[in-house]
């Protein structure tokens, strides 16, 4: 009996290279605005393997969403410009692919879910129709077969009474249900990579946990690579294998999840972890990272974090620290990474 894993890669013309699904190499993304050129992504590289979940963590403006959209190819190309870099999916560079070929990877190979499911679903079509659309457009199924598949998917993501509700409209569902519908749509064609851009930010805490559990389940079942974009450290702890922390369009740290939580290797990560309020801190002042992220139109020289870093020394203000391997598998872009780890 073929497993889902087998059917996913078997029929596809894209095969992972050494288990490597996605390889982002030296990616630069600029936005050309009337006020100047904003560098949203400033030389980012990372990898995603089959069955792995990578969390990309960062504040607003760190470039995490732009990274996701660049991978999907849904950026508005003016004003966005990708001056250099590679995004390789199963060895093939998506950026140099002809658009028609790239379009066919969206859905069957790489899929994405968004933060606000209400505005991300089309309000005038029934949810079943929207899920079934994946099958009608990409696999050429007829209406009733596609709808059957849609019902099956809705059941898989635990939407009660799926057969009756397949004709309902997005506004008739609760927030959590809508997000499940988005997930159903995204995994419909068994993609190898699923990108989730802040999927739980708009949801209640209890619903958040359910959705994250669902994502993890589906990922294991289908052996997908999962990229989870978030600013919330709490959400990420259970699901992610590795975390990449972004700041001002650059990766400042990548590590395996437990190591990162236990001993961060970058002052920014440390600051983020320290600022999570804990029950035993009652009565004390909340720790926060002072200052604001820099203006993307005018990034200061040296380490971009230096104005807010309590450890900043002279070299930090002049030399940009490269992302280097501190211990095997752990990368940090700080001149004093070892100090941070041992603090």
């Amino acid at each position: 009996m073929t497993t889902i894993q087998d059917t996913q890669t078997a029929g596809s013309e894209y095969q992972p290279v050494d288990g490597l699904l996605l390889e982002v190499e030296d990616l630069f993304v600029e936005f050309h605005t009337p006020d100047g050129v904003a560098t949203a992504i400033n030389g980012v590289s990372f990898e995603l393997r089959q069955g792995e979940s990578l969390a990309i963590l960062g504040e607003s403006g760190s470039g995490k969403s732009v990274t996701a959209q660049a991978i999907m190819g849904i950026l508005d190309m003016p004003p966005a410009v990708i001056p250099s870099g590679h995004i390789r999916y199963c060895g093939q560079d998506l950026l140099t692919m002809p658009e028609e070929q790239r379009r066919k990877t969206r859905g069957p190979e790489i899929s994405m879910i968004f933060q606000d499911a209400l505005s991300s679903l089309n309000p005038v079509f029934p949810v079943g129709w929207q899920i079934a659309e994946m099958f009608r457009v990409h696999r050429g199924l007829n209406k009733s077969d596609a709808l059957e598949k849609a019902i099956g998917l809705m059941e898989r993501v635990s939407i009660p009474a799926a057969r009756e509700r397949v004709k309902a409209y997005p506004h008739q569902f609760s927030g959590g249900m809508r997000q499940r519908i988005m997930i159903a749509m995204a995994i419909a064609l068994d993609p190898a990579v699923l990108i989730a851009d802040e999927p739980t930010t708009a949801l209640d805490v209890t619903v958040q946990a359910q959705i994250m559990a669902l994502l993890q389940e589906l990922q294991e079942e289908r052996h997908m690579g999962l990229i989870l974009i978030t600013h919330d450290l709490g959400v990420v702890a259970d699901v992610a294998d590795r975390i990449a922390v972004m700041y001002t369009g650059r990766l400042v740290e990548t590590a395996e999840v437990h190591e990162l939580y236990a001993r961060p290797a970058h002052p920014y990560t440390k600051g983020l972890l320290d600022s999570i309020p804990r029950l035993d801190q009652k009565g004390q002042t909340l720790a926060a990272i002072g200052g604001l992220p820099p203006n993307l139109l005018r990034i200061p020289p040296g380490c971009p974090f230096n104005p807010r870093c309590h450890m900043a020394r002279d070299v930090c203000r002049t030399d940009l620290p490269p992302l280097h391997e501190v211990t095997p598998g752990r990368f940090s872009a700080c001149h004093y990474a070892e100090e941070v780890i041992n603090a």
Partner: protein
Amino acid sequence: MTEAAAVVSETVAPNGSSDENRSLASDAWRSLRKNPIFWASAVLISIFVLMAIFPSLFTSTDPREAVLEESRSRPGDGTWFGRDIQGYDIYARCIYGARASILVGVLTTILTVSIGGFIGVMSGYLGGAADAVMSRVGDVFFAIPLLLGAIIFLVSLPDFFSSNAFLGALKVSLALAVLGWPSMARLMRSSVIQVKPNDYVQAARALGASPSRIVRSHILPNSVAPLIVVATISLGGYIAAEATLSFLGIGLQAPAVSWGIDISAALVGLRTTPHMLFFPSLFLSLAVLGFILLGDAVRDALDPKNR
């Protein structure tokens, strides 16, 4: 928002204006000032208002002075725009016609804003049964198309005051206002409904502020923006409506001077004397255009997405 806007807006500090007073009004005025269309329409409107109040600044000819021998004369033969069938100087009539139009436009707007505004605010603030009743009543008035309703109204008072410029204008304004207030009422009502649940309004109520104070200090300032836009554009519409009613013979009537009357008379002689049609049409169109452009410019200036 586009990605560019989202990225840039979150990290870019506005250029040097962090210390300035950034109230909505001053922001709007600033962008209004830069808009050439605003200035063009303001100038246009000022000219017409001036024409309405002081027509003698523009012409010394009496618009009711008929020189029959020269009737239907072309522009240039002693007059700027020629003469119409009855020998009136078209140029003078165009200038004097501004009075009727501006008067009706302004009066109607004042009436609709006061009546409609008052009812709308009451309706939105009180809610419940009062709101339901007032909304239904508004619906009924709203259901009758403006022109048709005005026709019925005026048909019942056909020759009352029509020949006196001021009273005739008042009559027409009344007819238009009776049917025009519901749209203003709806606007104010929805403004009030949007603002009422806000925390600062609840706080004011808890502190014992009287309803009229709450309305004045909190609700009205927020509703003023759409009100101005709609009132300005409606003004242009009312000018057009007055001309239409006079054209149909049911608004102002001779010997009062109105562009609508002139256009109506001019259509008869269209084949041979087109100039009789053109000049009043031009004046009318420019007057309406002026107000609509102004309303558009104000709307753009107040639109938060443009800032």
